[in-house]
C-alpha cells in the first residue's frame, strides 16, 4: 500500500499542468462554449493533443498510445478535470479505436486508426434502437449479405453528434438463429453512404446533440465488418466496460464540487453565507465523503487494469456511484441558483439578469439526467453486479 507520488510523478504532473495552461487557451475555451464553433474547436483541440502525443493515453504504444502507467493516467485525468479541459470525444478514441486495434484486420487498423488519432474522422455510436434500450441485444437493424456488401435497414437512436459524424460503428443483426446475443455483427459504416438519414432530437436541455439515424438499403462493404460475422456482441461487450469506467468522471465531479463550494462562499442568505449554513454543509459533505471513497475505488480499478486485469463488473460500480454523484453536484448547483433556477438563454446579459451561472447550471443538470441512463442504465449495472460479482 503506497498512494504517494514519486518525484517523477510530480514532474509529470507539472508537465501536464503547464501544457494545459499553454495549449488550452481562453480563445479555444470561448469557441468550445459556442455551439456554432464547437465542432471545429474540439477538432482543433484534439489535433493539438495529437501533436503533443497525448491523444490516446488508453491505447497500447504500438498503436499510438502514450505508454503511461496507471499513476500517470490518473494524474493526467485529474489535471485535465481540475483545469476544466474538455475531454476528447469518446466515440473514435475510446470506443471504436480499441475495438479496431483489438479485433480488426491489419488493413482496418491501417485505414482507420491513424485517422482516429489525428481526428480526421468524426465517429458516432450506433447501438441503441427505439425498441432496444436496456435490452440492447434485442436490436433489430438488419444487415443482409449481397455479394461483397451488406444491405442495412433499420434505425438507431440517441446517436450523439451523428449530425457531425463521418463514420458510425453499428451493431446489426445478421442472423435470427439461436440466442439474441448471437447473430449480431459489428459494422463500420460511412455516414455519406446513400440511404442514411439523420433526424435531430431536441433533448431536455433544449439543445441538439442527439439524433435518430435511419438506414434504408444502405450498402456496406463486407471489408468494413469487424471480426467474424454474428460475433459482434463479443466485441461490443469488451468495449462497454471501458465506456462505463469513463462515464464515472470522478475528477470532473470533484472540480464541480469545488466550484459549488466556491459559489456557496459568495451566496448570502439573510446575512449568512450559504457555506456556513449547517444544512448546506451536510449536503456538501454527504457528497464529498462519497466522492472521496469513489476516487479510491477508481484508483483500485486502474491499478488492477495496470497489472493485467480488465475492467470488469467493478466498472459497473464506478458507473452507478459516479453518475449518482454527478447528479447530486448538479442538483446542489441548481439549488445555489435559487430563484434564478431554470433560467433559459436570452438576449439579456448576465449583468442585466443579475445572475452568472444559472443557465449553465440548468444545462448541466438537465443533460446530466442522461448519465444514469446511457452506457447501460444504472438498473442494468446493478443487474450486472448482482450476476457477475454476487453470483445471484
Amino acid at each position, binding site marked *: 500500500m503506497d498512494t504517494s507520488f514519486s518525484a517523477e510523478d510530480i514532474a509529470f504532473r507539472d508537465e501536464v499542468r503547464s501544457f494545459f495552461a499553454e495549449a488550452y487557451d481562453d480563445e479555444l475555451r470561448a469557441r468550445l462554449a459556442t455551439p456554432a464553433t464547437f465542432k471545429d474547436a474540439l477538432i482543433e483541440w484534439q489535433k493539438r493533443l495529437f501533436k503533443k502525443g497525448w491523444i490516446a493515453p488508453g491505447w497500447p504504444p504500438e498503436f499510438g498510445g502514450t505508454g503511461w502507467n496507471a499513476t500517470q493516467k490518473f494524474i493526467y485525468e485529474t489535471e485535465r478535470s481540475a483545469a476544466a479541459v474538455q475531454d476528447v470525444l469518446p466515440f473514435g478514441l475510446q470506443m471504436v479505436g480499441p475495438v479496431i486495434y483489438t479485433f480488426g484486420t491489419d488493413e482496418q487498423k491501417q485505414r482507420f486508426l491513424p485517422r482516429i488519432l489525428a481526428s480526421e474522422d468524426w465517429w458516432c455510436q450506433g447501438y441503441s434502437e427505439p425498441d432496444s434500450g436496456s435490452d440492447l441485444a434485442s436490436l433489430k437493424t438488419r444487415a443482409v449479405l449481397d455479394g461483397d456488401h451488406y444491405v442495412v435497414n433499420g434505425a438507431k437512436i440517441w446517436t450523439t453528434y451523428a449530425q457531425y459524424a463521418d463514420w458510425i460503428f453499428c451493431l446489426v443483426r445478421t442472423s435470427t438463429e439461436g440466442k439474441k446475443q448471437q447473430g449480431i455483427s459489428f459494422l463500420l459504416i460511412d455516414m455519406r453512404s446513400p440511404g442514411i438519414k439523420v433526424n435531430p432530437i431536441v433533448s431536455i436541455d433544449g439543445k441538439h446533440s442527439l439524433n435518430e439515424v435511419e438506414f434504408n438499403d444502405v450498402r456496406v462493404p463486407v471489408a468494413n465488418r469487424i471480426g467474424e460475422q454474428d460475433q459482434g456482441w463479443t466485441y461490443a461487450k469488451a468495449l462497454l466496460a471501458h465506456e462505463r469506467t469513463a462515464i464515472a468522471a470522478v475528477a470532473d465531479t470533484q472540480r464541480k464540487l469545488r466550484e459549488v463550494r466556491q459559489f456557496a462562499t459568495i451566496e448570502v442568505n439573510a446575512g449568512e453565507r450559504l457555506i456556513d449554513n449547517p444544512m448546506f454543509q451536510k449536503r456538501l459533505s454527504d457528497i464529498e465523503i462519497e466522492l472521496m471513497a469513489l476516487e479510491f475505488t477508481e484508483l483500485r480499478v486502474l491499478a488492477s487494469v495496470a497489472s493485467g486485469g480488465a475492467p470488469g463488473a467493478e466498472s459497473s460500480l464506478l458507473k452507478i456511484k459516479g453518475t449518482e454523484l454527478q447528479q447530486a453536484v448538479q442538483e446542489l448547483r441548481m439549488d445555489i441558483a435559487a430563484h434564478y433556477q431554470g433560467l433559459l438563454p436570452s438576449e439579456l446579459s448576465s449583468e442585466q439578469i443579475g445572475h452568472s451561472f444559472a443557465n449553465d447550471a440548468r444545462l448541466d443538470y438537465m443533460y446530466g*439526467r442522461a448519465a444514469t441512463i446511457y452506457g447501460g442504465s444504472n438498473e442494468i449495472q446493478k443487474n450486472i453486479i448482482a450476476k457477475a460479482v454476487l453470483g445471484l
Partner: protein
Amino acid sequence: MNFEFSEEQTMLRDSVARFIQDNYDFDTRRTIAESANAINSNYWQTFAELGWLSLPFDEAYGGFSGNAVDTMLLMEEFGKGLVLEPFLATVILFGGMLQKSGDAALQEQWIPKIIDGSCQGALAATERQSRYEFTDIATTAKPDGDSYVLNGEKVVVLNGFNADQLIVSARTAGEQSDSRGISLFLLAADSAGVERLGYRMMDGQLVANLVFKNVSVPASQLLGELHGGYGLLKSTLLDAKLALSAEAVGVMEALNAKTLEYTKTRKQFGVPIGSFQALQHRMVDTFMACEQTRSLLYRAVCAVTDQKEEAEAEVHALAVMVARAGKLIGSEATQLHGGMGLTDELDVTHYAKRLMMINATFGNGDYHQAKFNALRYSA
C-alpha cells in the same frame, strides 16, 4: 371529520378538469409557451367568464368568497394540465395581497377588474441578492411630499412582463434584511421610470426583471401600513406556497400516472418493464410519496382555512414534502422513461421541470425546513 368536497367544490374541480381536457393538450400548451406573451389571452377571458378569477374575493366586490380548499382544487387541476396563465401571480399574489390589505379604496378600484379579466397583476418581491429571503430588500421608497420615490430592482417577477399593475416591496426604514421597515406600493407597470426586461424559464414561464428609476408613486398607493408590510408579505407568500403545493400535487399525480402507464407498455427483455420487481418497488415509492404529500396538503389547507395557530408551520412542512416528493417523482419519471425521458418532445420532461420550478419558487425545501425548525424547536 370528513375529507369530502361540497357539491359546489366538486363542480368547480370538474369544470377546471373539463376545460383542461378540452383546451389544454400538450401541443396547445407548447404553442402558448412559445408565443410572445407565453399566455393565451382568450383563455384568460374564459377563466373570468367561468368565475375562476373571482374565487378568493369578497362577494362585496363580485367575488366568490371561496376558501383555501377551493383554491387547492383549482390549482391541482392546473397542475395536471401545466397551465401557464397567471392565476397565481394575479389572483393569489396581487389580488390576495390587495384583499388582505384592508385598503377599501384600492380594493374597490382593482378587484372587480381582476375578476372580469381586464387587469393582470404581479408581486415584485425578489431581488438579485435576496434568494428566498423576502425581507432582504435593497429597493428603496423615499417620501417626497405626497408621494414616494422608488429606486431599485426586482428580479424573476412572475408575470412581471405581462402585468398591468404591480405591487412592489420596498424599504422605507431599517437595514437591508430587517422585517420592520418594509412597505408595499401598488403602481401601474407602465409608470414612468419602470423598465421591464422579460426572459423565459424552463417551465415555459415568461418572467421579468423590473428596474425602478425615480418612480413617483402617490402616498394613496401605499398598501397597508408604512414600514409594516412584513406581515402582509409573509402571509401572502405562504398562501402562494400553499397554492403552488396544490399545483405540485396535480403535477405529481399526472406524472406518476404517465410513468406507470409507460412501465406497463414499454417492453424490454420480452416483457413490460413494469413486471420487474426492482421497478415495481420504485413505482410504489413514488405512489406513496404523492399520497403523503396530498395528506400534508389537506392538513395545511384545513389549518389555514380554520386559521389555526400552527398553520404557518404546516405550510412549511408541506413545502418540505413537496420538495422531497417532487424530486423523487420527477427524477424517477425521467429515469424510468429512459432515453424518451430526455427528449423535449415528451410531456414528461415538462412536468418534471415544473416540479423543479415550483420548488424554486418562494423557498425551496431547505429554506422551509429551516423555517419549520425555527418555529418548532427554537421558540
